[in-house]
């Protein structure tokens, strides 16, 4: 994995010192809140309902055990013993004191972590496929390119005050596990006919109050042109993106208002000046960054095949967990393991300090010291020998981390909502908990199959509700919480934006409404092989709306 060089260390240390000084001056009253607020936001510090919040970047979702232990230590020492993993592959602490921020950031810097560019109108933490470097279906590891983008974009003077925040996601295979079509720039690694590596480039995706899917503006961009082309996109956006209205400031609106043909022509024109200049990536540089991400040496462990079959036979719980949470690795003797942070009735994405320590220990013992954070708010051990799955499972069980629900109806994404967030209209977490409890029975979940529920507590859509198969959006109506349901969204390579079903539901009605939707699916599917989203796409919203609202109109 990437290691800081001298420059990185000095850069992060300088930033910690600078911000420590700013905090000290704020606490002594030398600078006002108005002056301080943009400074704290540049360092990931927000003010929430009950306390400050610190958002720590986890670049492309990759951690080692030392870093995970540090996150646990921070949770224990400076917070209330837990943290929240988010859809942006970050971790948020909900209770740190402002006066502790310098100490926290100093501790993070010790393990090559920081909170820079986790807020503000800059290029945010670059996200990537959480199975990067391990997935059987991968063309190339997206993380080296995410790292190149990170180095280039960190405190980039030209792109530190953009019209609005800017999010880039990179995926390394056809299957999009990074939701690239709802990012400002989405990059998909691929090979051309000559076997050379490059990217399909998408721009203008986004969620929030105006959800829009990205448009592909290039089918193949050679890897050497990554930075020059991205710079061209950023320049055109920086120049034309709207600064008059914060709700129209994202690149998605520029793409929408200008038209993708005209905009990509402008990008190409800008790129013509840049492409053979200093931003062209030398092959040696790409190779040097790639070397940091060289996969661990995975010794053959063929004995795992036989053992796995025997263990599955003797322990149905283990078999179920393998069926849901274990995915094929490109090395046939290994697997990728999803550690669910969605215990039945639990808080999506929350992990206690003890759980973080446990994951760190298990990563060392069984997974070549690598951990990933997924945008679905789970953790991943990307390199586990089949022969180690059973002991790993036993250990996860003890720490409450073996819930076998990856991709199922209880694997819910939920933003912090009104329990923490100052912008929220309604709560998200209790909604997720109630749905999880209702559908928690393993048999029932298995029968329902793949189904993604995503919940946001306001239209900012941090919980990705627009791309949930079932999306739930909290709104405030006459001072009370109300929830709108949308159906048919998807954040993968067949991305779509969900459609609102109709009038919203009160908190007490919502879980019943979700159950009605699920029952409608079960009654209409051609068989267990037809997933919820496939069924929805075949039969449309009609039957679901009828089930949700018809009895009502009859009664009226």
């Amino acid at each position, binding site marked *: 994995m990437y290691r800081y060089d001298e420059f990185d260390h000095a850069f992060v240390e300088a930033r910690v010192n600078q911000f420590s000084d700013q905090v000290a001056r704020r606490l002594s009253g030398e600078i006002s809140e108005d002056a301080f607020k943009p400074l704290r936001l540049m360092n990931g510090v927000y*003010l929430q309902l009950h306390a400050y919040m610190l958002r720590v970047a986890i670049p492309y979702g990759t951690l080692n055990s030392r870093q995970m232990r540090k996150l646990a230590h921070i949770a224990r020492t400076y917070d209330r013993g837990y943290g929240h993993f988010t859809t942006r592959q970050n971790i948020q602490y909900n209770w740190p004191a402002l006066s502790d921020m310098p100490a926290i950031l100093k501790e993070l810097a010790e393990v090559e972590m920081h909170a820079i560019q986790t807020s503000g109108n800059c290029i945010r933490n670059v996200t990537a496929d959480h199975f990067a470097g391990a997935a059987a279906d991968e063309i190339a590891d997206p993380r080296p390119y995410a790292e190149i983008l990170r180095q280039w974009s960190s405190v980039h003077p030209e792109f530190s005050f953009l019209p609005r925040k800017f999010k880039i996601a990179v995926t390394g295979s056809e299957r999009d596990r990074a939701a690239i079509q709802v990012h400002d720039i989405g990059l998909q690694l691929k090979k051309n006919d000559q076997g050379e590596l490059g990217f399909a480039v998408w721009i203008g995706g986004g969620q929030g109050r105006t959800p829009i899917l990205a448009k592909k503006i290039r089918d193949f961009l050679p890897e050497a042109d990554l930075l020059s082309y991205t710079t061209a996109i950023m320049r055109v956006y920086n120049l034309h993106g709207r600064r008059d209205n914060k709700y129209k400031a994202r690149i998605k609106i520029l793409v929408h208002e200008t038209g993708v043909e005209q905009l990509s022509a402008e990008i190409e024109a800008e790129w013509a000046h840049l492409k053979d200049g200093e931003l062209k990536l030398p092959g040696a540089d790409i190779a040097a960054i790639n070397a940091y991400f060289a996969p661990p040496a995975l010794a053959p462990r063929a004995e795992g095949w036989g053992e796995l079959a025997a263990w599955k036979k003797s322990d149905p719980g283990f078999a179920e967990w393998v069926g849901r949470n274990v995915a094929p690795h490109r090395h046939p003797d290994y697997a990728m393991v999803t550690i669910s942070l969605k215990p039945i009735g639990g808080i999506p994405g929350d992990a206690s300090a003890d759980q973080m320590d446990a994951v760190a220990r298990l990563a060392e013992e069984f997974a070549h010291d690598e951990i990933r954070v997924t945008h679905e708010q789970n953790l991943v051990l990307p390199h586990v020998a089949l022969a180690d799955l059973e002991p790993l499972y036993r250990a996860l069980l003890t720490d409450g981390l073996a819930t076998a629900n990856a991709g199922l109806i209880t694997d819910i994404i939920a933003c912090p909502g009104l*329990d923490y967030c100052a912008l929220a209209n309604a709560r998200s977490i209790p909604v997720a908990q109630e749905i999880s409890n209702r559908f928690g029975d393993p048999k029932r979940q298995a029968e329902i199959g793949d189904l993604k529920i995503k919940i946001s507590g306001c239209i900012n859509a941090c919980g990705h509700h627009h791309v949930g198969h079932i999306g739930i959006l909290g709104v405030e109506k006459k001072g009370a919480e109300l929830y709108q349901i949308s159906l048919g969204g998807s954040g993968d390579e067949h991305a779509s934006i969900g459609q609102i079903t109709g009038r919203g539901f009160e908190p007490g009605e919502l879980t019943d409404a979700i159950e009605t939707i699920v029952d409608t699916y079960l009654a209409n599917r051609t068989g267990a092989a037809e997933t919820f989203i496939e069924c929805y796409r075949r039969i449309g919203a009609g039957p679901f709306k009828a089930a949700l609202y018809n009895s009502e109109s009859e009664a009226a």
Partner: protein
Amino acid sequence: MKTTQTKTKVLTANRLTDGISVWLGASGEWTTSLKDAFLARHEDAVAAIEAAGQTALADNRVVDVNVIEIEETESGPRPYRLRERIRADGPTIDYAPASAARVSQAA
């Protein structure tokens, strides 16, 4: 002096040092419990807490100062808005098994 009756109001903010939610108490101190907040029942009183808020902001003791409306109930002041009720009572979920230790330690 005669002033107009209004909905009862209290002054709330977050403490500068740690961001914890606080309410202005009767003797001008900031309290972490809404129960101990000073209840402004008349326009003059509301003007007074607003002025106190501006002073505290200028003194860098608190941030995000707001006057909010509450209902006086038998069990104490109850904000009209759910948001403010959650600020007063904390998250509505059992959020951190380990929290009790840390809180008692901090107290």
